[in-house]
C-alpha cells in the first residue's frame, strides 16, 4: 500500500517518461520508471510482468498509468528484493583474501559475464571512482554507496 508516497506522486513520475504525449509509456521504459521510483527489478521480472514481449513489443507497445500501477505494486510487494546483506555476501564470494576488497577487474568480468550481463558502458559508469590505486574495491562501502540513491 502507498503511505507517504501517493499514487499521484507515481503518476507524476510516470508522466515524466511520456515522450509521445499520449499519457502512456513504452514497454521498454517500464523497468526504468520502476527504478526511478526506488525499485530494483531484474529485467527478467519486468519481462514476465509484460508477458515476455518480443523486441518489437518492447519498442512499440505502450502502457497507460492505470495498467502500470499494478505492475509496480507487484514489484513493490516482491518478497525477493535485494538487501544490503544480499549484495555484500554476493560480492564477498570474490573476496579471495578475505580483506573486504575485490579486484575491480574481476568484478567487471563478473558483471559482464554472469546474470543479466552489463555492458562496458554501464560498468564504467557504475565503477567510476570506486577503485583505489591498486584497482581494488571495498565492497561494503561500495554497496552502501549503491543503496544511498
Amino acid at each position, binding site marked *: 500500500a502507498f503511505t*507517504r*508516497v501517493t499514487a499521484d*506522486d507515481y503518476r507524476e*513520475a510516470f508522466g515524466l517518461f511520456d515522450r509521445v504525449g499520449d499519457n502512456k509509456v513504452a514497454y521498454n521504459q517500464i*523497468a*526504468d520508471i520502476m*527504478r*526511478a*521510483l*526506488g*525499485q*530494483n*527489478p*531484474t*529485467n*527478467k*521480472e519486468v519481462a514476465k510482468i509484460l508477458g515476455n514481449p518480443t523486441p518489437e513489443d518492447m519498442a512499440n507497445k505502450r502502457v497507460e498509468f492505470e495498467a502500470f500501477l499494478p505492475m509496480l505494486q507487484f514489484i513493490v510487494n516482491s518478497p*525477493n528484493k*535485494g538487501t544490503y546483506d*544480499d*549484495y555484500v555476501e*554476493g*560480492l564477498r*564470494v570474490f573476496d*579471495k583474501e578475505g580483506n573486504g576488497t575485490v*579486484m575491480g*577487474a*574481476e568484478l*567487471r*568480468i*563478473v*558483471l559482464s*559475464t*554472469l*546474470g*543479466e550481463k*552489463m555492458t562496458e558502458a*554501464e560498468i564504467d*559508469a*557504475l565503477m567510476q571512482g570506486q577503485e583505489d590505486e591498486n*584497482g581494488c574495491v571495498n565492497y561494503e562501502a561500495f554497496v552502501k554507496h*549503491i*543503496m*544511498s*540513491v
Partner: protein
Amino acid sequence: MYCPTVVKLYIFWCLQQEECSRPQEEEDIMDIPLDDPEANKAAAKIQAGFRGHMTRKKMKPEDKAEGEEVSRHYG
C-alpha cells in the same frame, strides 16, 4: 610463476580483445561459475540493484541535496 593478480589482469586484458577466445583453463583460473544457476541468480540480483542505483543517479537534479530528497521520497 606470475602472481595471481598479474594472471587475472592478463586474462581480463585478453577478454577485452575481441579476437581472443576463452579456453576452459582460463575460466577455471578466474573461478567464475558461468553455468551455476545460483551464482547467476545472485549476480542478477546485484546487477538489478546496480541498475536501479544508476537510473536514480541519472534522474537526480543538479542540486545533490534536493536529489537525495527526491529519491528518499520515492524510495
